[in-house]
């Protein structure tokens, strides 16, 4: 049932950013708390024993971290991002950082463990193994370590003119580097203590993926990611046979449509409106205003009817939507590749690893990987949507005079922007591309208001919603292969809360 409610998001999206979500590409987010999310998480935590936020206490109370806290004092007053990272880790710790560990524990309990496992290894009341709990903690440590290392500043000659600022920044980098190393080394040690070399190999490769992610694509001088150039052209080069028939600007999109088209009658905008209409009755006014505000006929109507037919929540046909989201779109390829490395790989491999610890065969472990990967990607798409919507709410034209803080900025490689670059009208795309090219040195030179305005009017938000829905559906499909249990229901509930927002 909740599968069908995905499109509600389009009109209700602008509210507080979801508390759980970390923006992988842009470091940490300090966000507000939503009651339904909190309930889903605290219910889930009860199922696996005790609040997963306790996981972090052990390393939080160690000598080294106490040492770091001492040194952090010296940085107070400076603008080093480590302070913000630390603040987010400590003050929003209950719901923020522990969510991934919680997911690992819930999937562990959902699937259960092999009968061969020694009773001593089991935490009977929680229904998970002690080793699985350790793995959940390691997952959090690896992720935190990566976030901290991402929070370094690239110091280059001329960046800071004042000597004391430079000193502060260098010191902040040093502490950030050491703290991240501390977590990484200790996660290695904890993994080694589990005495499962396959698991060590798996999790090491997740660390490798995280570090590799930092190198993907165009970046500004602080390594903030920028979208690839000519996103809309890349695909056309691969589909040379389509080149002659389709105008260059829409090739990527049309090539998909060509494959599926029966008739062409709806534009992207119309698709979004009809989707909303089919799910909610009171939206006629919204539709009217949408049509009024937007120059609907700016570009050639897209052949959309078939896309709608192929949407999973409209037709329960998952295969066709997979084609859009897994092979045909350059935007999706770029987005997926980046976010796989930057997080989905870690959650996928942790979920795989926990089933390995439980003594399951490779086929079941693979299911764990699929679940974790799709859940993480769905989360990512969701965070991006929320951030994008949140930006809109805060920066209507009247508040232009207050520049947004970096916490409220949407990423230039978030799915809505990437989709826009691939599928929007040439005029709109060129406007966005021009803005993005301003960001080669620093993304703060990009006029996000313009980008936001253009992207809001394009297909990006809706396609991102579909992308998110695609991944939640895939995650749910894995869950449905396991027996009904309270842990499984908690996972479903978490996905449901996300999908219904």
């Amino acid at each position, binding site marked *: 049932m909740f599968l069908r409610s995905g499109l509600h998001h389009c009109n209700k999206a602008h509210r507080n950013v979801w508390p759980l979500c970390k923006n992988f590409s842009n470091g940490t987010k300090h966000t507000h708390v939503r009651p339904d999310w909190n309930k889903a998480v605290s219910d889930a935590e009860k199922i696996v024993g005790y609040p997963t936020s306790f996981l972090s206490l052990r390393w939080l109370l160690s000598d080294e971290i106490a040492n770091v806290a001492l040194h952090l004092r010296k940085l107070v007053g400076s603008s080093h991002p480590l302070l913000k990272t630390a603040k987010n880790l400590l003050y929003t710790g209950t719901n923020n950082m522990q969510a991934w560990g919680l997911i690992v524990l819930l999937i562990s309990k959902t699937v259960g463990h092999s009968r061969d496992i020694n009773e001593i290894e089991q935490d009977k009341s929680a229904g998970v193994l002690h080793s699985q709990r350790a793995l959940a903690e390691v997952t959090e440590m690896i992720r935190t370590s990566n976030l901290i*290392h991402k929070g370094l500043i690239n110091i280059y000659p001329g960046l800071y003119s004042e000597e004391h600022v430079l000193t502060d920044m260098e010191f902040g980098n040093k502490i950030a580097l*050491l703290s991240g190393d501390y977590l990484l080394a*200790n996660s290695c040690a904890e993994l*080694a203590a589990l005495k499962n070399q396959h698991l060590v190999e798996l999790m090491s490769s997740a660390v490798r993926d995280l570090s590799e992610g930092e190198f993907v694509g165009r970046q500004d001088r602080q*390594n903030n990611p920028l979208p690839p150039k000519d996103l809309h052209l890349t695909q056309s080069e691969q589909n040379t046979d389509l080149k002659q028939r389709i105008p260059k600007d829409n090739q990527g999109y049309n090539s998909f449509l060509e494959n599926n088209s029966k008739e062409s009658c709806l534009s992207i905008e119309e698709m979004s409106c009809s989707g909303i209409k089919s799910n909610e009755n009171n939206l006629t006014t919204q539709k009217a205003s949408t049509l009024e505000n937007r120059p609907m006929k700016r570009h050639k109507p897209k052949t959309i009817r078939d896309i709608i037919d192929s949407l999973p929540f409209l037709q329960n046909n998952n295969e066709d939507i997979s084609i859009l989201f897994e092979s045909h779109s350059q935007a999706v390829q770029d987005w997926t590749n980046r976010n796989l490395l930057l997080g989905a790989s870690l959650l996928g491999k942790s979920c795989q690893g926990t089933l390995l610890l439980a003594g399951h065969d490779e086929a079941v472990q693979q299911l764990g990987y699929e679940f974790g990967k799709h859940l993480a990607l769905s989360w990512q798409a969701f965070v991006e949507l929320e951030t994008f919507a949140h930006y809109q709410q805060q920066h209507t034209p009247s508040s232009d005079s207050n520049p947004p803080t970096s916490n409220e900025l949407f990423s230039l490689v978030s799915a809505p922007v990437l989709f826009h670059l691939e599928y929007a009208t040439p005029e709109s795309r060129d406007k966005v591309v021009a803005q993005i090219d301003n960001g080669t040195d620093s993304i703060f030179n990009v006029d996000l208001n313009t980008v936001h305005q253009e992207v809001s009017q394009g297909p990006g938000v809706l396609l991102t919603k579909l992308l998110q829905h695609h991944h939640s559906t895939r995650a749910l499909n894995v869950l449905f292969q396991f027996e009904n249990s309270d842990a499984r229901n908690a996972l479903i509930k978490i996905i449901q809360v996300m999908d219904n927002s």
Partner: protein
Amino acid sequence: MVYISITLNFYPGTVAQWSQNQTQDQHQIHTSSHVHSPAPCPSSSHPSPILSSITSPVSVALTCRSYSSQQQPPVPELNQTVDPYQLLDEDMKDLYRDIRKELISNTNQEELRTIATYYFDGQGKAVRPMVTVLMGRAINYHLNRNELTEAQRQVAMFAEMIHSASLIHDDVIDQSDFRRGKPSVNVVYNHKKVAMAGDFILAVACQMISRLRDNDVTLTLSQIMTDLVQGEFMQLGSKETENERFAHYLTKTYRKTASLIANCSAMLGGADDQLSEVAFEYGRNLGIAFQLVDDLLDFISSSDAMGKPAAADLKLGLATAPVLFACEKYPELKPHDHATISRTRKHCVEAVRLANILAESPYQKGLIVLTDLVLNRMK
């Protein structure tokens, strides 16, 4: 005549290649700045006169013969022609190539490949893998086996990889400009990427070790990593009183340097606990001696270059051995290098004693020569 060539790295800004003639008791050292070194350290071409009073390392080695256990047949004359570098030429030849291959095969990102392999260009001293392989072979010989196992080789690779990962992170922390005769990696690439490349090397190294499917090896090697980080934290500053400072320094030195050498050389397929202990203790002593000398050289070079003893170390907040000795005995911070030297010699003597427990072989002799090399770096 054996020709040993070691590339030494001092901390900020100094690289020198030491060519060392090891045939007789008198050690003639030529120092010359590395071809690519843009900033040769003045002190490397003018060794401090303080050091000329050190006893010849060979006589050190010979004196320690008396320490050797009784069951070992007495060796009439220590064969000084053993050159560890030449001895391990075959083993070490492909080491860097294999490490590069391992790293490159793990990513498609060109820039990551470049940064991660930056220090695996064969210009390093490769002390860690060398000790590991030497000890591995010496133990193999002791146990009547011949070949270096693949596992032993991989541990040697691991040693060098972890060392490089920590060098890369050190470069970001210390903001050093030159290392191993070329610009430090943090000068050429941006800090975040360098930090990530360090994590990447560590992850690939762990992956490689996990494929040995040996729980004990993974456990021991993960201990090295926590030691390294704890050592780094200790370097940040100490809360100890004056009296405890030197103990603090030695613990730090163990964690930062010796743990890696000791644990890696103790990783031996088939050696019993007693033998592993010998290997571990040898590595520990050698590692501490090695770091003491490193700090001493650093101290001397900073004194000479800046005309102000230990200024660099004090500025960086590091507590190195000479500074500590100086603080103990000379409030005005006059270096007291002899204390460092005698301490270093003590560790080398102990290392030689341990090496002599092993059956005599070219590799076992190599282990002894290595202690000489450590002491000789001071001249």
